[in-house]
């Protein structure tokens, strides 16, 4: 009996010991295996490098520079006709009446700020840990890239949600400059437009000072920011601000004094001889900044965000797209001075199903054409315009810059100072050249906005003048409901 009792005691004790030793307390703090917790994202150089690319990745999302931001720049303006009346694909943007809760209004706001916060968190993290991990030199480069992306993002928001810089508008944007990863930070009032532009310029100055002169591959030179990219963006921003002297000062650093116009320092920006070779997956010296795409899910714009999907004709009509927007017969394609026989850029216009379509973007689903964000001819034309406006004369260099762009595609047309009777003729020609050159590249709306021009009527959509409701977008309804300090336009 005694033996038996002991046996049970031993058995029970063994069980208890087993229990005591079996609790695996370390399992209470598991780390994710398919993601990286924020505590560890600055722990190695490789992770920091991957974060740098994520800043561009955030900007490249289909709702932002990878698709819709660019698309809105065209469909809000006058060169396209909406074919599908689909609110999801921006029929309201086209008609000039998106509401506070419209897909376009809500999403562009959200994705731009998501990019901004990603940049802010990165800059904060680099300041506190990251730079010590990668070293001062690389750290400086990376922070400069983050500021470049942040500048791109704020600039994008200003083009749709605020009145132009020259308007003297007070209602700009909530200006967020430090990273947020907890709740309770919703409330922040809108800073004046001028303050936001000032911040953008400050970021670009820092970027220019911190960015590398170039990368080791043409691909990286087109898909990441280097010194000359920051300068090119500055010309765009200064032009939007109407600071033409600054445009000239910046542009002159990447544009030679005489034709052929190229950047003589750092990455040698230059026009390519054949304009049809700068789309698709081109990474030429003309492609200042492009958003690269691949066929892997998540690395392309995604459903209903792709330029080719919006502007391309349907397969039934011989295209690769969904026929969302056809070319407005009364838009820029009606311009007879844009010669239909000799100008290569006319080859981007394609007729199918009785309508005209833009086929700059020809890769089929999943639409892997790179999105051209900045091309060198923009810098040339911005410089030309700034010179014309500041000198208030038919300046020969301005004409030469304009001619460089026209002549490249249409050898039969050569502009000389004699081609223009007034300065206004020249500036109009420069604007028209931009309209032709960047058709389907998202610049049209911004050009109309910065000069406070009326958006002309197109199809059934009414014209929108600077004072009209719908000239700029309302503020996102979600922002207004959750940020009590933010007010609507």
């Amino acid at each position: 009996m005694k033996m038996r009792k002991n046996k049970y005691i031993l058995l029970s004790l063994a069980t208890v010991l087993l229990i005591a030793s079996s609790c695996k307390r370390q399992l209470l703090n598991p780390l994710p295996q398919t993601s990286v917790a924020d505590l560890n994202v600055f722990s190695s150089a490789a992770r920091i490098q991957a974060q740098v690319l994520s800043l561009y990745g955030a900007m490249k999302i289909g709702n932002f520079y990878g698709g819709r931001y660019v698309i809105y720049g065209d469909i809000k303006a006058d060169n396209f006709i909406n074919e599908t009346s689909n609110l999801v694909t921006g029929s309201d943007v086209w008609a000039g009446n998106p509401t506070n809760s419209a897909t376009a209004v809500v999403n562009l706001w959200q994705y731009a700020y998501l990019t901004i916060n990603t940049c802010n968190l990165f800059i904060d993290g680099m300041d506190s840990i990251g730079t010590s991990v990668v070293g001062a030199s690389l750290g400086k480069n990376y922070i400069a890239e983050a500021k470049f992306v942040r500048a791109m993002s704020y600039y994008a928001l200003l083009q749709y949600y605020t009145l132009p810089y020259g308007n003297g508008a007070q209602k700009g944007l909530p200006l967020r400059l430090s990273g947020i990863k907890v709740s309770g930070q919703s409330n922040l009032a809108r800073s004046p437009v001028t303050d936001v532009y000032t911040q953008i310029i400050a970021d670009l100055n820092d970027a220019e000072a911190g960015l590398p002169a170039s990368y080791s591959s043409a691909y990286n030179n087109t898909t990441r920011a280097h010194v000359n990219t920051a300068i090119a963006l500055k010309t765009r921003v200064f032009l939007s601000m109407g600071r033409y002297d600054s445009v000239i000062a910046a542009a002159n650093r990447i544009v030679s004094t005489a034709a052929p116009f190229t950047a003589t320092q750092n990455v040698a920006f230059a026009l390519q001889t054949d304009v049809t070779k700068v789309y698709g997956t081109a990474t030429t010296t003309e492609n200042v900044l492009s958003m690269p795409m691949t066929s892997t899910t998540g690395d392309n714009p995604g459903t209903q965000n792709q330029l080719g999907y919006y502007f391309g004709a349907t397969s039934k009509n011989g295209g690769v797209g969904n026929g969302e927007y056809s070319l407005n017969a009364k838009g820029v394609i009606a311009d007879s001075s844009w010669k239909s026989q000799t100008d290569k850029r006319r080859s981007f216009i394609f007729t199918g199903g009785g309508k005209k379509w833009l086929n700059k973007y020809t890769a089929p689903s999943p639409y892997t054409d790179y999105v051209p964000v900045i091309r060198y001819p923009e810098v040339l034309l911005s410089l030309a315009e700034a010179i014309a406006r500041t000198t208030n004369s038919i300046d020969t260099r301005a004409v030469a810059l304009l001619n460089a762009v026209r002549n490249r595609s249409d050898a039969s047309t050569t502009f000389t100072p004699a081609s223009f009777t007034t300065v206004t003729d020249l500036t109009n020609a420069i604007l028209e050249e931009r309209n032709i050159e960047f058709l389907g590249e998202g610049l049209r709306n911004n050009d109309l906005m910065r000069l406070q021009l009326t958006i002309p009527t197109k199809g059934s959509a009414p014209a929108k003048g600077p004072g009209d409701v719908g000239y700029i977008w309302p503020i996102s309804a979600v922002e207004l409901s959750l940020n009590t300090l933010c007010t609507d336009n």
Partner: protein
Amino acid sequence: MRKHLCFLLWLCLAVCQLHAQTKSATGTVTDEKGTPLPAVTITALTSDRKVISTTVTDINGVFKLSLSENAKTLQFTYIGLEEQFLPIGGRSSFAITMKTGSKNLSEVVVVGYGSQRKSEVTGSVASVKGAAIAETPVQSFEASLAGRSSGVQITVPSGIVNEPPVFRVRGTNSISLSSYPLVIIDGVPSFTGDYTSGNASANPLSSVNPNDIESIDIAKDAAATAIYGSRASNGVVFITTKKGKAGRAKVTYDGWAGWNKAYGIPKMLNADQYIQFKTMAVANNPSLTGASAISFKYAKNADSSNVNTNWADYVYRTGFSHSHNVNVSGGNDATTYYLSTGYTTQEGLVRKNDFKRINILANIDTRLNKAISLGGKASYSNEQNLSAGSSGSLNGEAYNTGALTRLTQVLPSILAPYNPNGSYNINGSAAGSSNITGISSLSYPNPIPIIDLSRSNNEVNHIQSNVYLQVKPLSWITLKTLYGIDYLLIDNDVFLNPVNGDGYTPNGTATATSNKNKTWLWTNTAQFDYTFGEKHNFSLLVGNEQQRRTSATWGIQRQGVSDPNYNVIQAGFTVNNPANNSKGENYLLSNFGRLNYNFDKKYFLAGTLRRDEYSALGQKAGIFYGASAGWEIAQENFWKSVKLDHVFSSFRIRGSYGKVGNINGIGDFSPYNQYYSGLYGGAATLSYALGTVGNSNLKWETSKQTDIGINFGVLNDRITGQVAYYNNNVDGLILYVNQAPSAGLPTVYYAGPPLNVGSMYNRGLELNLNATPVQNKDFTWNTGFNLTINNNKVTGLADGLPSIQTATSSLETVNLTKPGYALGYLWVIRTAGVDAGTGKRIFVNSAGQKVYYQYYAPSGQFNYSTTPDGLTKYVSPSGGTTITQAADAVMYRNPLPKYVGGWSNTFNYKGFTLDVLLTYQAGFYVYYGTNSGLHDQRFWNNATDILTDAWTDKGQTGKKYARPVFNDNVSNGSAMPMDMNIFKGDFIKLRTISLSYNLPSAIVQRVKLSSARVYVSGQNLGIISGYPGPDPEVASNGNTTSGQGVDRNTTPNARTITVGLNVGF
């Protein structure tokens, strides 16, 4: 806690002493029919009820027990039979007949880590016998729990097979997390919900063959559930599967075959009506002239007759189902076993929507000696859930253009299903519509190629197994260790055909994903049952438990078939992408204890404590508790002195209070801000924008529950009843709180960071009555009625979060959650009928002003006008010129049933048994969103009532639908949800009616059987409801807590007839 447990165990063992033995008792135990009863426990007790020795009867019902001098009483116990106490006196030989006890005394209920006599339970527990649900043609057992117990709401969401029902115990207790109760199968928590990724749903609980269930016990209040601490706030459901019974091996076969059919399918316009009606609608829209003109022609069949397609004929069918189960049960006094196997194929009412299951369950329990017993179970189930594609019924599917149910209503009856040459009538990705001029593509596919060529299947392999070792070093000490696993392994196999529908543009899409969910669980408990001085009965349980779950999913999506005949994932495709990759893990570490005390079975006290630590939380540890008390007044002398015992055989007051939690559905890595990997032009990125926002302070949702009740028995328990009041206050509800978008937090997976901010309550009253109104030699009638009255109210959300919208399939929002209202309140725009003079829809704006709407506004008129003539432009109080949901919708009706219950009746007459179960829900409203589609004035087909109920002529009053104007999708509710499509959901259903006949034993024995029974039964044969749709028992948003009461393109429910046979060998 662990230290204490260890010490206690040691202490118990150390004080162990054996008693001297001097004499013995022998005897036999039989049941009321005189059959010897094996495995009856006989315990010798001292005068103060201390245990001296114990034994069990052998296979012949014979026992022999050593007794000491101080042995005074023998106790005989057997589950299901009435316990007996016999004074020993001078006797040494005994013959005992055990009786079927009156229910309250003998029944036991499972209470978590053990069982208790029902008569001693002070918490609120409902029990359902396995037999009640065994033979019903359902895929998983809980679908047949409706109406069987108070406090339990079961809503079958649609007629799609194996979709988990909406299952609520005492109301909905969460917003963002799951409100499904915790389901414990033989001691191991099961998976609940749907883990598949295609269009065929799979309920993990369908792996349990209903025929293998012995009992279902549903713990409802904190006293009963607190032993499961952090997971208990939605109630706990204990499933106990059958075990072997000692005796000769008994083999039982049970089989049934059944037919089901949809009921309440809307009647659609035929070809003649369609052309006539739509032509009139086109004429009413002057913008459709000239180049925009739309016209309809008859399509022709091969025999040149007019095409008149009833699309429902091509989508629905009469489903045939059958099921077969064989089990073997037996054993001797030391070892019992149970082996069961089942096969079932159940066809749903939508073509190609099938459920097939093969399952096997084996268990064995053996007693090595007086002190040690061990055993285990192994169960394996293979289920195939098949479907051609989306039906439109599962959560998130309502607006799928390829949804089969929806296509039966949208596609015009003038379209031919096939071309005269036998090929599919298609046009690109859409159905062919060459006989409609003016609309280039209908954008909805032909359902036939989807049914023929596509599939969205999954195969589930589910393994649930456990082993245990139990040691009783002393008769009053039970030590038990149990290790269990639950492996839910799912393969999803989806193919969208390249011919028509969603697979057309990518030229075929195949997706295969493998999803593995694994649980292991190790439980160790020590139980001490001790009686002092005859009347002080103590039972103490202490335990420790660890549960770990891991999940891993990987998959691939391939597009563009390389050969038109390819339809499997392994074939050639041109585009390859990863799909649905994820990996998760969590760990729950717990210590718990429970103390039950009663004095003389008159006064009862119980307390439970559990400490849980959970890996997915920021604040890992939490303490949960429940305390309860009961008073059996019928045992009191004063009660007897006023002769109340002549009326009440029992009368007990009980009450409980406790705090429990909910963690079901919290992401495994919620405490962290996570950066996810992405790509930038093929290069790796580490992105916060693609990531999640965490909360390092995240903790459980907590539910504080009060329960007060009375249990009584009248006329020697011929009538028994329970009445209970409960009050569950839930706070710390986890909400994913939206932050201003300008804060720039990622919202890829959640709307915002998870915060413990919300609060709500469920308060209610439960009533259960069971009675045997008639009982005589040939005829008995047993009846049970139950009612639950529940009142749900949300009392708080987060700061800066005035309300939460819950969209149906991310398109239409009808449910709004707002403090002061029930969860997911129906939120719609008010209307005031149709204007008699013009046939315009009259909206009522936020200020109560009437606004007249016309889809087509002639020059000089407005779409929205404050006058019927359309000449006065409507300007809203906030300056808008249209009616919008954001501005004008009101909190309109409650979608949560206030009254839920059932009424069951069993009539026995000689060998015949008639079971009738009625279930009901009342006091709620349903948004019949399908109705807006049925009256949409685009090319969509309409229900036939449009012919009589739409305004056509001046002066018509009381019309439901506006003047038909082609393309008008606003007036009848498609564009904005409105009140005219909300209806009372109250219903009474004849859920089950079943007639069975036990063949007389004389006949049965002649064919060498021990029993034989045949039955015929019907499900859902009748419904009484004012609801105009197919069935008010519906849930387009599935188990979504805040999205109930929506009926959007849902497949109707099935009406089923089965015939069955049950034979014992």
